[in-house]
């Protein structure tokens, strides 16, 4: 049993569990699946600064903060107790592309050669960590949701604006990975 759990899980298992989170949250207390709103709740809790967008009863949404707290703990549990001893398998073409840019360490889920405190002092690291994070926080709120809220919850509820948002996410991602990121990685 433990051996099965420590292997990387196939997409249909992961997808089914994530899909089931939608009704679980609804049935547990009429909560709509979403993550990115937490960034707004954190702003509302820490730096509301009289901005109307951050002046609301964020405590009413504190379930959402508990939810991401759980995600953090799940990350710890799974890394400590369920991690696979085998290296992560990467598509050979991707490995080849990345090697050109000096990224050769494929051991972790997050490449340490791009995302680490040392990298913050390089232009490439600064753009990717600070710039990338900014775009995620700004974009998700402007779009009104992220992959969870729009692509999974919104599409599950057949909301067409969520389909528009999801298509936009994908277009943005394709543009970045294929056209812009090579220039950033080359820095």
């Amino acid at each position, binding site marked *: 049993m433990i051996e099965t759990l420590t292997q*990387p899980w196939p997409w249909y298992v*992961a*997808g089914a569990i994530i*899909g089931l*989170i*939608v009704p679980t949250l*609804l049935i*547990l*207390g009429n*909560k*709509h699946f979403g993550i*990115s709103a937490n960034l*707004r709740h954190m702003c509302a809790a820490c730096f509301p*600064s009289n901005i*109307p*967008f951050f002046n*609301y*009863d964020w405590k*009413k949404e504190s*379930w*959402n903060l508990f*939810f991401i707290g759980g*995600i*953090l703990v*799940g990350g710890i549990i799974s890394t400590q107790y*369920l991690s696979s001893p085998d290296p*992560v398998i990467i*598509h050979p073409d991707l490995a080849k592309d990345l090697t050109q840019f000096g990224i050769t360490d494929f051991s*972790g*889920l*997050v490449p340490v050669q*791009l*995302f680490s405190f040392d*990298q913050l002092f390089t232009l490439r690291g600064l753009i990717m*960590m600070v710039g*990338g*994070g900014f*775009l*995620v*926080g*700004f*974009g998700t*709120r402007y*779009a*009104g*949701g992220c*992959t969870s809220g729009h*692509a999974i919850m919104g*599409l*599950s*509820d057949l909301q067409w*604006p969520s389909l*528009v948002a999801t298509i*936009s996410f994908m277009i*943005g*991602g394709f*543009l*970045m990975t*294929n056209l*812009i990121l090579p220039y950033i990685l080359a820095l």
Partner: protein
Amino acid sequence: MKTKQEETDFEVRSLDTMCVNESELVHPWWYNFKYAAVGVIFGIVFIKAEIISWFRIQEMFKLQSFHMYGVIGTAVVVGAISVFLIKKLKIKTVHGEEITFTNKKFNKGQIYGGLIFGLGWAITGACPGPLFAQLGSGSLAVIVVIASAMSGTWIYGKFREQLPH
């Protein structure tokens, strides 16, 4: 008597946000631990299915792997069947409350914001959920990405009125 802020609170909370607490019930704060428990499962899935992997996200956008499409596709199908059944069978919450849905209105933010988020997603290899799982998995530097994402949300909130919607 309700103050003006309380009356409009739902509107403000739901502004440009998908997930809103639609429940009218008030519970002790520790009831929220059930959502933390669901989060733990989500976090484990994130890691075990390598959804938080920067490499998997690059493979998705380079069409080198079906994995992420499979994960999101399956999640949407399972989620959609669940929502359909909840509506059809009028399933109630464990507290006996009716489960409600609010239709989303289209605005241009879903396009502009969506594109901006997509650019960021491909750089960081993570959407907001995986960022927290990455932090839990021991990539402590991701705290910088999360702080920066918070500042992005704050800047959006500050300039919201000036942005096209």
